[in-house]
Protein backbone atom coordinates (compact mmCIF):
# COMPACT_ATOMS: atom_id res chain seq x y z
CA UNK A 1 0.00 0.00 0.00
CA UNK A 2 1.53 3.32 -0.98
CA UNK A 3 2.03 6.16 1.42
CA UNK A 4 -0.37 8.34 -0.46
CA UNK A 5 -3.21 5.90 -0.10
CA UNK A 6 -2.45 5.66 3.64
CA UNK A 7 -2.86 9.40 4.10
CA UNK A 8 -5.87 9.19 1.87
CA UNK A 9 -7.32 6.53 4.15
CA UNK A 10 -6.65 8.65 7.22
CA UNK A 11 -8.35 11.65 5.61
CA UNK A 12 -11.28 9.50 4.59
CA UNK A 13 -11.59 8.29 8.20
CA UNK A 14 -11.61 11.84 9.51
CA UNK A 15 -14.21 12.81 6.95
CA UNK A 16 -16.36 9.81 7.74
CA UNK A 17 -16.12 10.55 11.48
CA UNK A 18 -17.20 14.13 10.78
CA UNK A 19 -20.22 12.95 8.83
CA UNK A 20 -20.94 10.47 11.61
CA UNK A 21 -20.97 13.37 14.08
CA UNK A 22 -23.63 15.09 11.99
CA UNK A 23 -25.79 11.99 11.90
CA UNK A 24 -25.44 11.64 15.68
CA UNK A 25 -26.47 15.26 16.17
CA UNK A 26 -29.40 14.72 13.83
CA UNK A 27 -30.43 11.65 15.83
CA UNK A 28 -30.30 13.42 19.20
CA UNK A 29 -33.90 14.75 19.10
CA UNK A 30 -35.14 11.22 18.42
CA UNK A 31 -32.90 9.82 21.13
CA UNK A 32 -34.62 11.95 23.75
CA UNK A 33 -37.36 9.35 23.61
CA UNK A 34 -34.83 6.86 24.93
CA UNK A 35 -34.04 9.07 27.89
CA UNK A 36 -33.73 6.06 30.20
CA UNK A 37 -31.10 4.55 27.94
CA UNK A 38 -29.11 7.81 28.18
CA UNK A 39 -29.33 7.70 31.98
CA UNK A 40 -28.17 4.09 31.92
CA UNK A 41 -25.17 5.09 29.80
CA UNK A 42 -24.29 7.98 32.12
CA UNK A 43 -24.27 5.36 34.86
CA UNK A 44 -22.02 3.06 32.86
CA UNK A 45 -19.48 5.57 31.56
CA UNK A 46 -19.70 8.03 34.45
CA UNK A 47 -20.52 6.45 37.76
CA UNK A 48 -18.64 3.26 36.96
CA UNK A 49 -15.50 5.30 36.19
CA UNK A 50 -15.60 7.07 39.55
CA UNK A 51 -13.28 4.71 41.39
CA UNK A 52 -10.42 4.99 38.91
CA UNK A 53 -10.93 8.74 38.49
CA UNK A 54 -10.99 9.40 42.25
CA UNK A 55 -7.97 7.23 42.98
CA UNK A 56 -5.92 8.75 40.18
CA UNK A 57 -7.02 12.28 41.11
CA UNK A 58 -5.90 11.78 44.67
CA UNK A 59 -2.50 10.42 43.67
CA UNK A 60 -1.89 13.04 40.98
CA UNK A 61 -2.67 15.80 43.50
CA UNK A 62 -0.36 14.24 46.07
CA UNK A 63 2.60 13.79 43.75
CA UNK A 64 2.07 17.23 42.24
CA UNK A 65 2.16 18.75 45.70
CA UNK A 66 5.32 16.86 46.60
CA UNK A 67 7.17 17.75 43.41
CA UNK A 68 6.13 21.39 43.39
CA UNK A 69 6.94 21.84 47.06
CA UNK A 70 10.55 20.92 46.48
CA UNK A 71 10.76 23.05 43.35
CA UNK A 72 9.13 26.07 44.98
CA UNK A 73 11.24 25.69 48.09
CA UNK A 74 14.29 26.48 45.95
CA UNK A 75 12.79 29.94 45.32
CA UNK A 76 11.33 30.38 48.77
CA UNK A 77 7.92 30.31 47.15
CA UNK A 78 6.21 27.43 48.93
CA UNK A 79 3.39 29.83 49.81
CA UNK A 80 2.34 29.55 46.18
CA UNK A 81 1.97 25.76 46.38
CA UNK A 82 -1.85 25.78 46.53
CA UNK A 83 -2.05 28.20 43.62
CA UNK A 84 0.30 26.26 41.39
CA UNK A 85 -1.33 22.92 42.16
CA UNK A 86 -4.82 24.31 41.55
CA UNK A 87 -3.85 26.05 38.33
CA UNK A 88 -2.08 23.04 36.86
CA UNK A 89 -4.94 20.77 37.86
CA UNK A 90 -7.80 22.95 36.68
CA UNK A 91 -6.25 24.16 33.47
CA UNK A 92 -4.32 21.10 32.27
CA UNK A 93 -3.94 17.93 34.27
CA UNK A 94 -7.54 17.53 35.40
CA UNK A 95 -9.15 17.63 31.94
CA UNK A 96 -6.34 15.83 30.13
CA UNK A 97 -5.62 13.00 32.58
CA UNK A 98 -9.34 12.44 33.11
CA UNK A 99 -9.80 12.30 29.34
CA UNK A 100 -7.03 9.74 28.90
CA UNK A 101 -8.42 7.60 31.71
CA UNK A 102 -11.93 8.01 30.31
CA UNK A 103 -10.79 6.87 26.86
CA UNK A 104 -9.26 3.76 28.39
CA UNK A 105 -12.06 2.99 30.80
CA UNK A 106 -15.25 4.08 29.01
CA UNK A 107 -14.23 4.64 25.38
CA UNK A 108 -12.99 1.09 24.90
CA UNK A 109 -16.11 -0.43 26.40
CA UNK A 110 -18.29 1.71 24.13
CA UNK A 111 -16.37 0.56 21.05
CA UNK A 112 -16.33 -3.10 22.04
CA UNK A 113 -20.02 -3.08 22.93
CA UNK A 114 -21.19 -1.41 19.72
CA UNK A 115 -18.71 -3.41 17.65
CA UNK A 116 -20.04 -6.66 19.05
CA UNK A 117 -23.59 -5.51 18.37
CA UNK A 118 -22.53 -4.88 14.79
CA UNK A 119 -20.80 -8.25 14.49
CA UNK A 120 -23.82 -10.14 15.85
CA UNK A 121 -26.32 -8.26 13.64
CA UNK A 122 -27.99 -6.62 16.62
CA UNK A 123 -27.73 -3.22 14.96
CA UNK A 124 -29.33 -4.59 11.79
CA UNK A 125 -32.01 -6.23 13.93
CA UNK A 126 -32.83 -2.84 15.43
CA UNK A 127 -32.98 -1.27 11.98
CA UNK A 128 -35.37 -4.01 10.91
CA UNK A 129 -37.55 -3.29 13.95
CA UNK A 130 -37.66 0.32 12.75
CA UNK A 131 -35.52 1.44 15.70
CA UNK A 132 -32.72 3.73 14.60
CA UNK A 133 -29.49 2.45 16.20
CA UNK A 134 -28.07 5.94 15.89
CA UNK A 135 -30.83 7.21 18.16
CA UNK A 136 -31.07 4.19 20.43
CA UNK A 137 -27.45 3.04 20.73
CA UNK A 138 -25.07 5.75 19.55
CA UNK A 139 -26.63 9.07 20.59
CA UNK A 140 -27.25 8.05 24.25
CA UNK A 141 -23.60 7.06 24.57
CA UNK A 142 -22.47 10.28 22.93
CA UNK A 143 -24.63 12.39 25.26
CA UNK A 144 -23.43 10.35 28.23
CA UNK A 145 -19.82 11.05 27.26
CA UNK A 146 -20.47 14.78 26.94
CA UNK A 147 -22.23 14.92 30.32
CA UNK A 148 -20.03 12.52 32.28
CA UNK A 149 -16.59 13.80 31.24
CA UNK A 150 -16.77 17.30 32.81
CA UNK A 151 -18.34 15.89 35.97
CA UNK A 152 -15.56 13.33 36.24
CA UNK A 153 -12.96 16.03 35.64
CA UNK A 154 -14.46 18.08 38.50
CA UNK A 155 -14.32 15.07 40.81
CA UNK A 156 -10.73 14.45 39.69
CA UNK A 157 -9.81 18.08 40.44
CA UNK A 158 -11.48 18.05 43.84
CA UNK A 159 -9.69 14.87 44.87
CA UNK A 160 -6.45 16.29 43.47
CA UNK A 161 -6.78 19.41 45.62
CA UNK A 162 -7.52 17.29 48.68
CA UNK A 163 -4.49 15.11 47.94
CA UNK A 164 -2.30 18.19 47.48
CA UNK A 165 -3.61 19.61 50.74
CA UNK A 166 -2.91 16.37 52.57
CA UNK A 167 0.69 16.30 51.38
CA UNK A 168 1.41 20.04 51.48
CA UNK A 169 -0.28 20.96 54.74
CA UNK A 170 -0.63 17.81 56.81
CA UNK A 171 2.65 16.23 55.85
CA UNK A 172 5.09 18.94 54.75
CA UNK A 173 3.77 21.43 57.27
CA UNK A 174 2.70 24.31 55.02
CA UNK A 175 0.33 26.74 56.75
CA UNK A 176 -3.31 25.85 56.14
CA UNK A 177 -4.42 29.47 55.75
CA UNK A 178 -1.59 30.25 53.33
CA UNK A 179 -2.46 27.21 51.22
CA UNK A 180 -6.12 28.13 50.77
CA UNK A 181 -5.72 31.91 50.90
CA UNK A 182 -3.05 32.07 48.25
CA UNK A 183 -5.02 29.69 46.07
CA UNK A 184 -8.29 31.53 46.33
CA UNK A 185 -6.57 34.86 45.70
CA UNK A 186 -5.10 33.70 42.40
CA UNK A 187 -7.43 31.16 40.86
CA UNK A 188 -10.22 32.62 38.78
CA UNK A 189 -13.57 30.88 38.44
CA UNK A 190 -14.15 31.58 34.77
CA UNK A 191 -10.74 31.75 33.20
CA UNK A 192 -9.27 28.83 35.17
CA UNK A 193 -11.88 26.50 36.61
CA UNK A 194 -14.68 26.82 34.06
CA UNK A 195 -12.22 26.90 31.17
CA UNK A 196 -11.02 23.48 32.25
CA UNK A 197 -14.60 22.26 32.49
CA UNK A 198 -15.21 23.44 28.92
CA UNK A 199 -12.13 21.64 27.77
CA UNK A 200 -13.23 18.41 29.36
CA UNK A 201 -16.69 18.72 27.79
CA UNK A 202 -15.05 18.93 24.37
CA UNK A 203 -12.79 15.98 25.25
CA UNK A 204 -15.86 13.98 26.31
CA UNK A 205 -17.54 14.68 22.97
CA UNK A 206 -14.39 13.80 21.01
CA UNK A 207 -13.79 10.52 22.86
CA UNK A 208 -17.43 9.47 22.65
CA UNK A 209 -17.46 10.32 18.93
CA UNK A 210 -14.30 8.30 18.22
CA UNK A 211 -15.44 5.38 20.38
CA UNK A 212 -18.91 5.11 18.86
CA UNK A 213 -17.60 5.69 15.34
CA UNK A 214 -15.01 2.94 15.67
CA UNK A 215 -17.59 0.56 17.09
CA UNK A 216 -20.26 1.40 14.54
CA UNK A 217 -18.00 0.99 11.52
CA UNK A 218 -15.98 -1.98 12.69
CA UNK A 219 -15.59 -4.97 10.35
CA UNK A 220 -17.91 -7.62 11.82
CA UNK A 221 -15.16 -9.96 12.98
CA UNK A 222 -13.43 -10.58 16.30
CA UNK A 223 -10.22 -9.17 14.89
CA UNK A 224 -12.12 -6.15 13.60
CA UNK A 225 -13.56 -5.42 17.05
CA UNK A 226 -10.13 -5.86 18.64
CA UNK A 227 -8.53 -3.41 16.22
CA UNK A 228 -11.37 -0.94 16.63
CA UNK A 229 -10.95 -0.97 20.41
CA UNK A 230 -7.22 -0.33 20.11
CA UNK A 231 -7.81 2.44 17.60
CA UNK A 232 -10.24 4.10 20.01
CA UNK A 233 -7.55 4.44 22.69
CA UNK A 234 -4.80 5.48 20.31
CA UNK A 235 -6.76 8.03 18.30
CA UNK A 236 -8.59 9.47 21.32
CA UNK A 237 -5.32 10.03 23.14
CA UNK A 238 -3.70 11.74 20.16
CA UNK A 239 -6.74 13.83 19.32
CA UNK A 240 -7.29 14.85 22.96
CA UNK A 241 -3.71 16.09 23.33
CA UNK A 242 -3.80 17.88 19.97
CA UNK A 243 -7.12 19.57 20.73
CA UNK A 244 -5.79 20.44 24.18
CA UNK A 245 -2.96 22.39 22.61
CA UNK A 246 -5.24 24.18 20.16
CA UNK A 247 -7.84 25.03 22.81
CA UNK A 248 -5.21 26.23 25.26
CA UNK A 249 -3.69 28.46 22.59
CA UNK A 250 -7.07 30.00 21.83
CA UNK A 251 -8.62 30.07 25.29
CA UNK A 252 -5.64 31.49 27.19
Amino acid sequence: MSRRSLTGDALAQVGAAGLFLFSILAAIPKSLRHFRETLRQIWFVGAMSLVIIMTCGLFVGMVLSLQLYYTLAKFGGTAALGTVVALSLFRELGPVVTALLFAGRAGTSMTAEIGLMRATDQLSAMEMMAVDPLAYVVAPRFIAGVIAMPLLACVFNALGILGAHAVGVSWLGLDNGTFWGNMSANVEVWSDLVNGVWKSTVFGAVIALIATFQGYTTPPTSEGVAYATTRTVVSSSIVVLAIDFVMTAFLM
Partner: protein
Amino acid sequence: MNTSNHSPGSDSPEPASAAYVQIRGLRTVLGGKLLFDGVDLDIPRGKITAIMGPSGTGKTTLVRHITGQLAADAGQILVDGRNVPELSRRQLFELREGIGYLFQNSALLTDFSVFENVAFPLRQHLRLPEEIVRNIVLTRLQAVGLRGAAQLMPAELSGGMMRRVALARAMIRDPGLMIYDEPFVGLDPIALNQVLKLIRTLNDTLGITSILVAHEFAAVRRAADLVYLIAGGKIAAHGHPQELAERDSPWTRQFFGGEADGPVPFEYPARDYALDLGFPAAAA
Protein backbone atom coordinates in the same frame (compact mmCIF):
# COMPACT_ATOMS: atom_id res chain seq x y z
CA MET B 1 -52.22 -1.53 15.85
CA ASN B 2 -51.62 0.88 13.06
CA THR B 3 -49.48 -1.53 11.11
CA SER B 4 -52.49 -3.58 10.16
CA ASN B 5 -53.29 -0.77 7.71
CA HIS B 6 -50.58 -2.10 5.47
CA SER B 7 -51.98 -5.59 5.55
CA PRO B 8 -55.31 -5.88 3.89
CA GLY B 9 -56.53 -9.31 4.90
CA SER B 10 -57.66 -11.84 2.41
CA ASP B 11 -61.22 -10.54 2.85
CA SER B 12 -60.38 -7.07 1.45
CA PRO B 13 -59.01 -7.69 -2.01
CA GLU B 14 -57.14 -4.91 -3.79
CA PRO B 15 -57.43 -5.50 -7.47
CA ALA B 16 -54.89 -2.78 -8.34
CA SER B 17 -51.84 -4.66 -7.13
CA ALA B 18 -52.14 -8.32 -6.41
CA ALA B 19 -48.45 -8.52 -5.58
CA TYR B 20 -47.26 -7.26 -2.19
CA VAL B 21 -43.68 -7.25 -3.40
CA GLN B 22 -42.81 -6.71 -7.03
CA ILE B 23 -39.23 -6.91 -8.27
CA ARG B 24 -38.22 -5.95 -11.80
CA GLY B 25 -34.81 -6.14 -13.45
CA LEU B 26 -32.85 -6.63 -10.22
CA ARG B 27 -29.10 -6.60 -10.72
CA THR B 28 -26.56 -6.98 -7.94
CA VAL B 29 -22.81 -7.34 -7.87
CA LEU B 30 -21.38 -8.23 -4.44
CA GLY B 31 -17.70 -8.71 -3.82
CA GLY B 32 -17.01 -8.86 -7.55
CA LYS B 33 -19.55 -11.63 -8.03
CA LEU B 34 -22.69 -11.16 -10.14
CA LEU B 35 -25.41 -12.30 -7.75
CA PHE B 36 -28.56 -11.22 -9.60
CA ASP B 37 -28.72 -10.72 -13.30
CA GLY B 38 -32.14 -9.36 -14.16
CA VAL B 39 -34.40 -11.02 -11.61
CA ASP B 40 -38.17 -10.46 -11.92
CA LEU B 41 -40.29 -11.72 -9.07
CA ASP B 42 -43.78 -11.23 -7.58
CA ILE B 43 -44.79 -12.03 -4.01
CA PRO B 44 -48.59 -12.34 -4.01
CA ARG B 45 -50.63 -10.85 -1.18
CA GLY B 46 -51.80 -13.11 1.60
CA LYS B 47 -49.81 -16.09 0.32
CA ILE B 48 -46.69 -17.87 1.49
CA THR B 49 -43.97 -17.61 -1.11
CA ALA B 50 -40.86 -19.70 -0.72
CA ILE B 51 -37.50 -18.56 -2.08
CA MET B 52 -35.28 -21.57 -2.61
CA GLY B 53 -31.83 -22.09 -3.91
CA PRO B 54 -28.47 -23.52 -3.02
CA SER B 55 -26.60 -21.66 -0.26
CA GLY B 56 -24.64 -18.69 -1.53
CA THR B 57 -27.05 -17.89 -4.38
CA GLY B 58 -28.17 -14.72 -2.66
CA LYS B 59 -31.44 -15.58 -0.93
CA THR B 60 -30.49 -13.54 2.12
CA THR B 61 -29.24 -10.78 -0.14
CA LEU B 62 -32.59 -10.73 -1.93
CA VAL B 63 -34.58 -10.19 1.28
CA ARG B 64 -32.04 -7.58 2.36
CA HIS B 65 -32.85 -5.75 -0.88
CA ILE B 66 -36.56 -6.03 -0.18
CA THR B 67 -36.20 -4.48 3.28
CA GLY B 68 -33.79 -1.79 2.12
CA GLN B 69 -30.83 -3.00 4.20
CA LEU B 70 -28.70 -3.27 1.10
CA ALA B 71 -28.86 -1.24 -2.10
CA ALA B 72 -29.04 -3.10 -5.39
CA ASP B 73 -27.05 -1.97 -8.42
CA ALA B 74 -30.12 -1.67 -10.59
CA GLY B 75 -33.76 -2.59 -10.63
CA GLN B 76 -37.08 -1.71 -9.15
CA ILE B 77 -38.30 -3.12 -5.83
CA LEU B 78 -41.90 -2.23 -5.03
CA VAL B 79 -43.07 -3.16 -1.55
CA ASP B 80 -46.73 -2.40 -0.93
CA GLY B 81 -46.57 0.13 -3.76
CA ARG B 82 -43.43 1.95 -2.54
CA ASN B 83 -40.15 1.78 -4.44
CA VAL B 84 -37.61 0.78 -1.80
CA PRO B 85 -34.43 2.14 -3.47
CA GLU B 86 -35.97 5.63 -3.55
CA LEU B 87 -37.12 5.77 0.07
CA SER B 88 -35.47 8.07 2.60
CA ARG B 89 -34.21 6.66 5.87
CA ARG B 90 -37.37 7.81 7.64
CA GLN B 91 -39.67 6.33 5.01
CA LEU B 92 -37.70 3.10 5.21
CA PHE B 93 -38.34 2.94 8.95
CA GLU B 94 -42.04 3.56 8.32
CA LEU B 95 -42.05 0.71 5.83
CA ARG B 96 -40.20 -1.60 8.21
CA GLU B 97 -42.74 -1.03 10.96
CA GLY B 98 -45.03 -3.13 8.81
CA ILE B 99 -42.50 -5.91 8.20
CA GLY B 100 -41.58 -8.75 10.52
CA TYR B 101 -38.10 -10.06 9.79
CA LEU B 102 -36.58 -13.25 11.14
CA PHE B 103 -32.80 -13.04 10.88
CA GLN B 104 -30.86 -16.03 9.65
CA ASN B 105 -28.77 -15.87 12.84
CA SER B 106 -31.62 -14.77 15.15
CA ALA B 107 -29.82 -11.50 16.11
CA LEU B 108 -31.32 -11.31 19.59
CA LEU B 109 -30.28 -8.36 21.75
CA THR B 110 -27.84 -10.03 24.11
CA ASP B 111 -28.31 -7.55 26.96
CA PHE B 112 -32.04 -8.16 27.25
CA SER B 113 -33.91 -11.17 28.58
CA VAL B 114 -36.07 -13.27 26.28
CA PHE B 115 -39.13 -11.37 27.49
CA GLU B 116 -37.59 -7.95 26.87
CA ASN B 117 -36.33 -9.05 23.45
CA VAL B 118 -39.84 -9.96 22.36
CA ALA B 119 -41.28 -6.85 24.02
CA PHE B 120 -38.68 -4.57 22.41
CA PRO B 121 -40.65 -3.55 19.28
CA LEU B 122 -43.75 -2.87 21.40
CA ARG B 123 -41.88 -0.74 23.92
CA GLN B 124 -40.11 1.22 21.21
CA HIS B 125 -43.12 2.10 19.10
CA LEU B 126 -46.22 1.95 21.26
CA ARG B 127 -47.01 3.28 24.69
CA LEU B 128 -48.90 0.34 26.12
CA PRO B 129 -49.68 -0.41 29.75
CA GLU B 130 -47.26 -2.94 31.21
CA GLU B 131 -50.06 -5.47 31.68
CA ILE B 132 -50.97 -5.48 27.99
CA VAL B 133 -47.32 -5.75 26.94
CA ARG B 134 -47.02 -8.73 29.25
CA ASN B 135 -50.08 -10.42 27.81
CA ILE B 136 -49.03 -9.93 24.20
CA VAL B 137 -45.47 -11.10 24.82
CA LEU B 138 -46.48 -14.18 26.79
CA THR B 139 -49.04 -15.18 24.12
CA ARG B 140 -46.36 -15.03 21.45
CA LEU B 141 -43.86 -16.91 23.58
CA GLN B 142 -46.52 -19.53 24.24
CA ALA B 143 -47.05 -19.88 20.50
CA VAL B 144 -43.39 -20.81 20.02
CA GLY B 145 -43.40 -22.96 23.16
CA LEU B 146 -41.03 -20.80 25.19
CA ARG B 147 -43.29 -19.08 27.72
CA GLY B 148 -41.32 -20.80 30.49
CA ALA B 149 -38.05 -19.32 29.19
CA ALA B 150 -39.25 -15.72 29.40
CA GLN B 151 -36.77 -14.68 32.07
CA LEU B 152 -33.72 -16.40 30.56
CA MET B 153 -30.98 -14.45 28.80
CA PRO B 154 -30.18 -15.21 25.12
CA ALA B 155 -26.81 -16.68 26.12
CA GLU B 156 -28.70 -19.37 28.06
CA LEU B 157 -30.61 -20.59 24.99
CA SER B 158 -29.78 -23.15 22.33
CA GLY B 159 -29.64 -22.12 18.68
CA GLY B 160 -33.07 -23.56 18.00
CA MET B 161 -34.58 -21.77 20.99
CA MET B 162 -33.06 -18.45 19.93
CA ARG B 163 -34.59 -19.01 16.53
CA ARG B 164 -38.04 -19.38 18.05
CA VAL B 165 -37.59 -16.32 20.30
CA ALA B 166 -36.57 -14.35 17.23
CA LEU B 167 -39.68 -15.64 15.50
CA ALA B 168 -41.87 -14.51 18.39
CA ARG B 169 -40.21 -11.09 18.24
CA ALA B 170 -40.64 -10.80 14.47
CA MET B 171 -44.39 -11.37 14.63
CA ILE B 172 -45.10 -9.36 17.80
CA ARG B 173 -46.68 -6.42 15.96
CA ASP B 174 -48.84 -8.41 13.51
CA PRO B 175 -46.93 -7.16 10.47
CA GLY B 176 -48.38 -7.07 6.99
CA LEU B 177 -45.35 -8.86 5.59
CA MET B 178 -43.37 -11.57 7.34
CA ILE B 179 -39.94 -12.55 6.08
CA TYR B 180 -38.44 -15.75 7.45
CA ASP B 181 -34.77 -16.25 6.61
CA GLU B 182 -34.09 -19.97 7.06
CA PRO B 183 -36.51 -20.52 9.96
CA PHE B 184 -36.04 -24.29 10.07
CA VAL B 185 -32.30 -24.41 10.57
CA GLY B 186 -31.34 -25.86 13.94
CA LEU B 187 -34.85 -26.97 14.86
CA ASP B 188 -35.64 -30.48 16.02
CA PRO B 189 -38.51 -32.23 14.19
CA ILE B 190 -41.03 -31.32 16.91
CA ALA B 191 -40.13 -27.64 16.93
CA LEU B 192 -39.96 -27.65 13.14
CA ASN B 193 -43.50 -28.94 12.97
CA GLN B 194 -44.64 -26.31 15.47
CA VAL B 195 -42.96 -23.48 13.58
CA LEU B 196 -44.33 -24.73 10.29
CA LYS B 197 -47.84 -24.77 11.70
CA LEU B 198 -47.33 -21.33 13.18
CA ILE B 199 -46.27 -19.87 9.85
CA ARG B 200 -49.27 -21.45 8.18
CA THR B 201 -51.65 -20.25 10.94
CA LEU B 202 -50.40 -16.68 10.81
CA ASN B 203 -51.03 -16.74 7.12
CA ASP B 204 -54.46 -18.35 7.24
CA THR B 205 -55.93 -16.41 10.16
CA LEU B 206 -54.37 -12.98 9.75
CA GLY B 207 -53.80 -13.01 6.01
CA ILE B 208 -50.17 -12.08 6.45
CA THR B 209 -48.08 -12.14 3.30
CA SER B 210 -45.03 -14.30 3.91
CA ILE B 211 -41.66 -14.79 2.29
CA LEU B 212 -40.07 -18.04 3.33
CA VAL B 213 -36.39 -18.46 2.57
CA ALA B 214 -35.45 -22.10 2.97
CA HIS B 215 -33.91 -25.06 1.30
CA GLU B 216 -35.74 -27.91 3.01
CA PHE B 217 -38.11 -28.91 0.23
CA ALA B 218 -40.11 -31.27 2.44
CA ALA B 219 -41.01 -28.43 4.80
CA VAL B 220 -41.53 -25.87 2.08
CA ARG B 221 -43.86 -28.21 0.27
CA ARG B 222 -46.19 -28.31 3.27
CA ALA B 223 -46.28 -24.56 3.86
CA ALA B 224 -45.73 -22.63 0.66
CA ASP B 225 -48.28 -21.61 -1.95
CA LEU B 226 -45.64 -20.61 -4.44
CA VAL B 227 -41.96 -21.40 -4.90
CA TYR B 228 -39.24 -19.41 -6.63
CA LEU B 229 -36.06 -21.29 -7.32
CA ILE B 230 -33.04 -19.03 -7.73
CA ALA B 231 -29.89 -20.31 -9.35
CA GLY B 232 -27.12 -18.73 -11.35
CA GLY B 233 -28.37 -15.19 -10.72
CA LYS B 234 -31.75 -15.83 -12.32
CA ILE B 235 -35.11 -17.32 -11.46
CA ALA B 236 -34.57 -20.90 -12.55
CA ALA B 237 -38.13 -22.00 -11.97
CA HIS B 238 -41.29 -20.95 -10.19
CA GLY B 239 -44.71 -22.36 -9.52
CA HIS B 240 -46.76 -24.32 -7.02
CA PRO B 241 -44.44 -26.62 -5.05
CA GLN B 242 -46.32 -29.77 -6.04
CA GLU B 243 -46.30 -28.85 -9.68
CA LEU B 244 -42.66 -27.85 -9.50
CA ALA B 245 -41.64 -31.14 -7.94
CA GLU B 246 -43.40 -33.03 -10.68
CA ARG B 247 -42.11 -30.87 -13.49
CA ASP B 248 -39.23 -32.64 -15.13
CA SER B 249 -36.63 -29.94 -15.55
CA PRO B 250 -32.92 -30.52 -14.90
CA TRP B 251 -32.93 -27.68 -12.35
CA THR B 252 -35.70 -29.04 -10.24
CA ARG B 253 -34.58 -32.61 -10.60
CA GLN B 254 -31.15 -31.74 -9.31
CA PHE B 255 -32.24 -29.41 -6.57
CA PHE B 256 -35.13 -31.40 -5.20
CA GLY B 257 -33.47 -34.71 -5.85
CA GLY B 258 -30.24 -33.65 -4.16
CA GLU B 259 -27.86 -34.63 -6.96
CA ALA B 260 -24.49 -32.85 -6.87
CA ASP B 261 -24.08 -32.76 -10.62
CA GLY B 262 -26.46 -30.80 -12.74
CA PRO B 263 -27.01 -27.25 -13.94
CA VAL B 264 -26.62 -25.88 -10.38
CA PRO B 265 -22.93 -26.02 -9.55
CA PHE B 266 -22.29 -27.55 -6.12
CA GLU B 267 -18.89 -25.94 -5.93
CA TYR B 268 -18.17 -22.31 -5.28
CA PRO B 269 -16.52 -21.00 -8.46
CA ALA B 270 -12.83 -21.84 -8.25
CA ARG B 271 -9.68 -22.37 -10.26
CA ASP B 272 -8.91 -25.72 -11.72
CA TYR B 273 -8.71 -28.25 -8.87
CA ALA B 274 -5.48 -29.85 -10.09
CA LEU B 275 -3.84 -26.45 -10.51
CA ASP B 276 -4.77 -25.49 -6.95
CA LEU B 277 -3.25 -28.68 -5.62
CA GLY B 278 -0.04 -27.91 -7.50
CA PHE B 279 -0.10 -30.39 -10.40
CA PRO B 280 0.57 -28.13 -13.39
CA ALA B 281 0.72 -31.07 -15.77
CA ALA B 282 -2.79 -32.11 -14.96
CA ALA B 283 -4.16 -28.80 -16.24
CA ALA B 284 -3.48 -29.81 -19.82
